[in-house]
């Protein structure tokens, strides 16, 4: 499929989703929007994703980190499945401050991994990768005195990539399905299901 028809197909589906919204039928939007989203996924799986802000190696490192931060499990896919690397790549291409945070942070991760294990982060065994992340989380929990040491920059960067990976996951169809958000619908009336009211009434009795 050439690029023009790919774009126009996306446009057509977006128009369709909007038209269904306007018509005000029931569970209109979720399916239509998922179709649109899946198109972006197709592009990626076909290997056609063109990097926007990061280098190939930086993108690979972000992808591995995104997989570790939000791993796939029975409730949903991973940060990579949710498009976190593309999300981060896009924003780095649009914002120099973010780009510097990522370039510097990723270089720090590799340098630290080399010092610890003699390899870049992506080339290290999974257990060594998580050992570094565990060290960062421990340093963060220990507070400022600890992080002021040699892990400080890593703690700050891990916060960034964790925050943005988590955002990318929970703003994606799989993340929204994971927490079972039921809304963004068109309803004719608002009601709380009786079982939810019963649940609250029991809590009030215990209060």
């Amino acid at each position, binding site marked *: 499929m050439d690029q023009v028809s790919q774009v126009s197909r996306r446009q057509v589906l*977006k128009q369709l989703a909007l038209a269904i*919204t*306007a018509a*005000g039928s029931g569970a209109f*939007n979720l399916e239509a*929007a998922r179709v*649109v*989203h899946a198109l*972006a996924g197709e592009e990626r799986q076909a290997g056609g994703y063109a990097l926007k802000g990061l280098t190939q190696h930086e993108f690979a490192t972000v992808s591995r980190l995104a997989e*570790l*931060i*939000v*791993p796939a*499990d029975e*409730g949903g896919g991973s940060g990579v499945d949710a498009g976190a690397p593309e*999300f981060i790549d*896009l924003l*780095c291409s*649009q*914002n120099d*401050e*973010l780009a510097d945070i990522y370039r510097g942070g990723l270089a720090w991760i590799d340098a630290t991994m080399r010092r610890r294990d003699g390899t870049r982060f992506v080339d290290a065994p999974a257990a060594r990768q*998580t050992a570094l*992340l*565990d060290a960062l989380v421990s340093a963060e929990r220990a507070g400022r005195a600890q992080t002021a040491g040699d892990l400080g920059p890593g703690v700050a960067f891990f916060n960034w990539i*964790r*925050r943005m990976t*988590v*955002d*990318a996951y*929970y*703003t*994606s169809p799989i*993340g*929204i399905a*994971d*927490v*079972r*958000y*039921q*809304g*963004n*619908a*068109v*309803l*004719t*009336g*608002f*009601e*709380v*299901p009786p079982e*939810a*009211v019963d*649940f*609250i*009434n029991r*809590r*009030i009795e*215990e*209060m």
Partner: protein
Amino acid sequence: MARLQPTPEIHDVVVIGSGAGGGTVAHVLTGLGVQVTLLEAGPMLDPYRDFKEHQWPYDVDHRGANEDGSRYLNARSRSYFSTTSGGWELEGEPYTVGDGSEFQWFRSRVIGGRTNHYGRMSFRFSDYDFKPYDRDGLGTNWPIGYDDIAPYYDKAETLIGVTGSHEGIRSAPDGVFQDPPAPKAHELLIKAASERLGIPCIPNRRAILTRPLNGRPACHYCGQCGRGCRAASNYSSSQVQIFPALETGRLRILDQAMAREIVTDGNGKVTDVIYMDKRTRQERRLQCRVLVLAASACESARILLNSKTSEFPNGVANSSGVVGRFLMDTVGFGLSARVPSLEGLPRYNSDGAGGAHLYMPWWGWERQQRLGFPRGYHIEIGGGYGMPGIGSFARVARESGYGAGLKAQARREYGTSISFQGRGEMIPNNFTYCEIDPDTVDRWGIPVLRFHFKWSDYERDQARHMAETFRALIDTMGGVARGPSTRDASGISVGGSIIHEVGTARMGSNSRTSVLNGFCQTHDVDNLFVCDGASFVGNPDKNPTLTINALAWRASEYMAEEMQRGNL
């Protein structure tokens, strides 16, 4: 040939601004047969094109972080889904803040202004709110009373549609109400805790339809009022007043028209308004019979102060020197909490009529002396299963580290957070005002405002009372409080950040100490009115929009009568 003269046409009524005040004036006057020309500093609005209702975060590649990723780096960057045109910062249109002050000013440049996205809280002032000085010796009495405005509250509520219930609570007078939606599940728990503490918790009063009204359908409960409602099931001046006014054929709109100054004739009459056409960057001039400022309290003050004539060396209609003074915002204090007893609540769609279905009106007006602070506040509540967005799980991510535990905690804790937001009355003071910055102009060459803002102990003591109340509510529910959500040491909001700025051209019976009479007409200039929040003498804990609607409605009827009589 270039036209050097002002256009010869004399416009009957020129209105500057299209928000709650300007929209009401345009709607009422055109309904009474008057020709109106409306100037708006932003573009025309197309709800279908501009409102982002029903979009999912993944419909945009940046997921709501803004195309430049600014949500991550600038706390005042615009909210992608819920702002059409405007925000805490406007490119090329700065304002400044005096040394030692903090102030934030939210502006919307678009037809409908901030009403396209506001919270739709619609509370009447109480009878006692109009006579604050009589009550405790603080502030100043209004020149009008509840009985003067009550018929206009009725008219405004009947037009815009407000939900509510009849409660007979003096601090929160009942109005013309549509049936309110049922409480959300977490609100039932909050209501039980509230009543245990002796605090009333009643159906919220909001300009959101639960029944069709004048061709506007009832709410479809997507919970996204803040993004603007394409169906017009909530109130916005654009959809409820301005678009219908256009259909009368008596309203003309000049958009991208930034008012700069008012011209008077040397005999106490406005003759012209000068504005910048943003499309051509050309200065233009309109002749008018009557001029109505409704550009927002501070923007209207800016226009008056920038209109210096030999007749009015301190600005048109400012012989009192009061324009810009007595600026007020609402006292804000918020506290959120995790409520473990909400874990396991059967999942449902809690979006509802975007925002809270219940609220707590002020309950302490009879024992004010014992409370240690003057005036009162109401409590707005938050909670439920909101649509995930940028930052929704930031705390969970931090607390859980990473990995499988992060996802498990998100599933467990989603929907178990609640919040309380206090919204209280500020007493006007001499240290809180806006003035023209002598050194700065915007990109249109118009001198900008400089703000000065100070809370006093009255407000800080009130905020402390809010903190105590919220902690008691959270304790009663077995919740875990998360600490103040706001920045100041005592947790009180930054001035202006509640977006209830009012008072900069207050009304009064004495022309030496006030700018307007009770009909929002300037004391100095008969054919000049100010119909936005600038007229407020006090700023009770009732969000200002409904009162702006009612005062503008009353002023418009008076204006039409005076025009009819040949007085204007």
